[in-house]
């Protein structure tokens, strides 16, 4: 269908065009520049909503952009899982844009134009990941995300930021080039195709379990953005970036691109059936489980708020991977839902952390005593986000945990069940004390006079907190979208 092709193109073209206009507007026309960012974000979201409208009668169109090597093309298509990722990213981009305006101006960050340009481009690349029709396209956009977010991570230009940038590039490019690319070329030489297909590309090609396991290990560890241990160090390092970057990119776009890639290649490249037959994914359950627990334990000991959130992200990402590794359809739903709900919950937490920094320049958990009374909106949102991380109703975190438990029951994996229970306790142990201290402890420092952060910041984080609750109250749309995933 014509419109579908047009819409698919526009998800890449819109943010790129936005980036161009932003760079033209430049530092001189600040208001115009930020208006362009917002308008682009809204347009992009509308485009994806339109795609969502048409998903029921999608034509399975594959839009080939270019074909560098015969049979190996850069191509886009529409598919429920990718659509979900695209919807979340583009919606949260709108909110983060509102937030950035307040944050960047109040904190007087340098090179703001570069910031907005790179931001828009990284959204474009994320959209590419979301709508990739084959593994090669996904890889291309995946690499592009890494490169274009690098200037955002090193935005401050300090020695510390440079070091973080090195770790960031080293881990992400290192794993993707050495492991993922190797797996891709290898898969290509075995099967002759990299197209995402229902049931996977190995379906009829009886490859040996050994080979399939090797390929799967290379692929999963190759996706460094999924922050599976031992390749997780880049994520805490990236926290040196400004808060909007940590919020949208390192809680949503970049890391979700990582776990999304893992889910996508498990379902559409390797195929659940084939993985189950060969047992090639059995090891992943344990690695992901270990990552969940170890990262939570590390998070417990972090005093820096953003570092604690980062390790919490590492742990939460592995929920998605563990859900994928269970290989049951219902656990794949859990993985997809968790991508969505964690996005809302974690972005709320990061936005709150940025809000605290903007208003009070506090970065440590131990400094937050009594801050809830000065910043009620921020800290209430933070509390909601925390509840969602733990998985307590009425927040969206409960949804994914429910499906994840269901998945673990269907395959009778007691290991997975106990990991979920222990980690829920750990989550509570490192989030609830913050909430408690913020609202119920006395503020020792009597001289503080700050109140709430600027309006746009508070608005943004209130919206995401609301979203976290709404997803729990009205999960219908989300669930029906997820159930369109075919295996």
């Amino acid at each position: 269908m014509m419109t579908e092709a047009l819409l698919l193109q526009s998800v890449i073209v819109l943010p790129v065009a936005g980036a161009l206009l932003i760079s033209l507007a430049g530092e001189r026309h600040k208001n115009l520049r930020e208006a362009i960012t917002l308008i682009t974000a809204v347009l992009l979201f509308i485009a994806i909503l339109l795609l969502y409208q048409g998903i029921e009668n999608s034509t399975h169109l594959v839009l080939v952009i270019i074909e560098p090597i015969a049979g190996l093309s850069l191509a886009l298509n529409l598919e429920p899982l990718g659509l979900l990722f695209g919807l979340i990213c583009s919606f949260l981009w709108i909110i983060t844009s509102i937030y950035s305006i307040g944050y960047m101006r109040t904190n007087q960050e340098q090179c703001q134009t570069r910031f907005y340009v790179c931001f828009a481009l990284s959204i474009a690349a994320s959209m590419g990941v979301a709508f990739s029709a084959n593994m090669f396209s996904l890889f291309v956009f995946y690499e592009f995300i890494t490169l274009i977010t690098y200037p955002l991570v090193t935005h401050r230009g300090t020695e510390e930021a440079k070091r973080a940038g090195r770790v960031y590039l080293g881990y992400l490019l290192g794993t993707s080039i050495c492991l993922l690319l190797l797996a891709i070329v290898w898969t290509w030489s075995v099967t002759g195709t990299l197209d995402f297909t229902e049931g996977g590309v190995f379906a009829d090609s009886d490859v040996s379990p050994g080979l399939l396991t090797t390929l799967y290990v290379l692929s999963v560890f190759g996706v460094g953005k999924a922050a599976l241990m031992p390749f997780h160090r880049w994520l805490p390092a990236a926290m040196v970036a400004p808060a909007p970057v940590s919020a949208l990119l390192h809680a949503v776009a970049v890391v979700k691109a990582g776990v999304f890639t893992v889910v996508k290649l498990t379902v559409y490249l390797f195929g659940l059936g084939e993985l189950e037959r060969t047992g090639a994914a059995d090891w992943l359950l344990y690695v992901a489980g270990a990552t969940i627990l170890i990262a939570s334990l590390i998070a417990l000991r972090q005093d820096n708020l953003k570092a604690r959130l980062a390790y919490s992200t590492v742990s939460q990402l592995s929920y998605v991977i563990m859900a994928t590794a269970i290989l049951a359809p219902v656990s794949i739903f859990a993985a997809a839902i968790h991508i969505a709900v964690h996005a809302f919950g974690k972005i709320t937490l990061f936005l709150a952390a940025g809000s605290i920094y903007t208003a009070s320049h506090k970065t440590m958990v131990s400094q937050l005593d009594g801050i809830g009374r000065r910043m009620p909106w921020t800290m209430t949102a933070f509390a909601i986000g925390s509840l969602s991380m733990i998985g307590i109703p009425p927040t969206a975190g409960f949804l994914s945990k429910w499906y994840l438990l269901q998945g673990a029951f269907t395959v009778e994996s007691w290991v997975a069940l106990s990991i979920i229970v222990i980690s829920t306790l750990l989550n509570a142990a490192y989030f609830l004390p913050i909430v408690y201290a913020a609202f119920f402890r006395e503020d020792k420092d009597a001289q503080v006079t700050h109140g709430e952060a600027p309006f746009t910041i508070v608005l943004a984080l209130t919206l995401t907190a609301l979203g976290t609750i709404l997803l729990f109250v009205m999960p219908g749309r989300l669930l029906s979208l997820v159930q369109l995933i075919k295996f």
Partner: protein
Amino acid sequence: MVWYVVLAVSWGTLLSAYQLLMQVLEQGEIIYFLGGWAAPWGIEYRLDILNAFVLMIVASIGAIVMTFAKRSITKEIARDRVYLFYTAYLLNLTGLYGVVVTGDVFNMFVFIEISSLSSYAMISLGRERQALMAAYRYLILGTIGATFFLIGIGFLYAMTGTLNIVDLRVRIQDLEDTRTVITALAFLTVGISLKFALFPLHAWLPNAYTYAPSVVSAFLASTTTKVYIYVLLRILFSIFGTTFVFDIIALDWIFLASALLAIFSGSITAIYQNNIKRMLAWSSIAQIGYMILGISLVSVTGLLAGIIHLFNHAIIKAALFMCMGCIFYRFDSVQLSDLKGVGRYMPWTMAAFIIAGLSLIGIPLTVGFISKWYLVMAAIERDWYWLAFAVLAGSLLAIVYIWRVVEVTCIQSAPAKDHPEARQPHMKEAPLSMLIPLWILVIANIYFGINTELTVDVARQSAEWLLGFK
């Protein structure tokens, strides 16, 4: 004035090279007897897909570099020697073209010497005194290489009585067991390997590229090594043949080992360089390793990877050296420590450097990725997974040395205030006459990474032809 003449010559030869390539693609080999003397008595010029392609590489780099050269030359070469540069450059071009088109080994040797002698002269034109020493060192080692090559030819002539490549191929098949022929192969291989700086015969290269004027480095790095690798292909595949070279002598293992050593030692040494030109020179040694690695796999895909990397590396390295030309033009230095925050004065130059650097690393949608893809494919086809991994790990080292430069030049903490001589009038973007050729190459880096029809097709045909599948 002189520049316009040289420029016209460069673009003119590019035009004929392009037409020759098209003609070869359409009609097959072109044969020309010099002076009307039929081969094998006279000298035969023979153009097939492989050398038409190499001819095209040399001609296009020549044309682009010459367009770029004018301002860079006036900056980096003393005024009373500029004419020497242009003369040496034209001689060099002649030599390279001659090596590529000729079908006669002795004629090839003569042209190799023409191009080598003129490149010694070009390197010695560098402003620093070390340029003389670098040129001298290159002269000594280059001459040893040429002598080895000549001895090899002598042995072959003694055994077969012919110098024509096609004729040699026919006659040598009966003589493969003789020690003389084996010795000839050894002399020819070592001689030419010295010329294109195969590890461990690379000692002359870093200094030569570092102290030569940037234009000369850009030109030599992307043409001479490529042409000499072409000569190697001719010797191995067209004269001796795969069975003899690889099955009986097992030269592929030697090439494999030295290619891997080249990749890793070259890249690691590049990481520790402060002078960016020297860093690029070491990177060239590593990249030559990739080309030889492709050849050592002795399969269509491997050879394809090697041949296509001839072209891809030519446009990558020329672009990178031209960036250094631009930076030197404005900042009088290519020492990394002098270049803090250059990116803010020269955004276009540094953007070009980053894109070409990404291409060198092998990021998708650039030419570097295409080479790497086929190289990894070739390794996997032979079930050498460790080698595929090693190739990819090599690109990580490239990330390190490229990113060191990016970090220093483009990311800096404080604004220009802490720069010792902040905002002087000369600190600005390079002139358009330098930027435009540079960006043509950068766009070529992306274009041929997206549309590989021509390059892959030509490389595949050459590879199949060399391996005797056609």
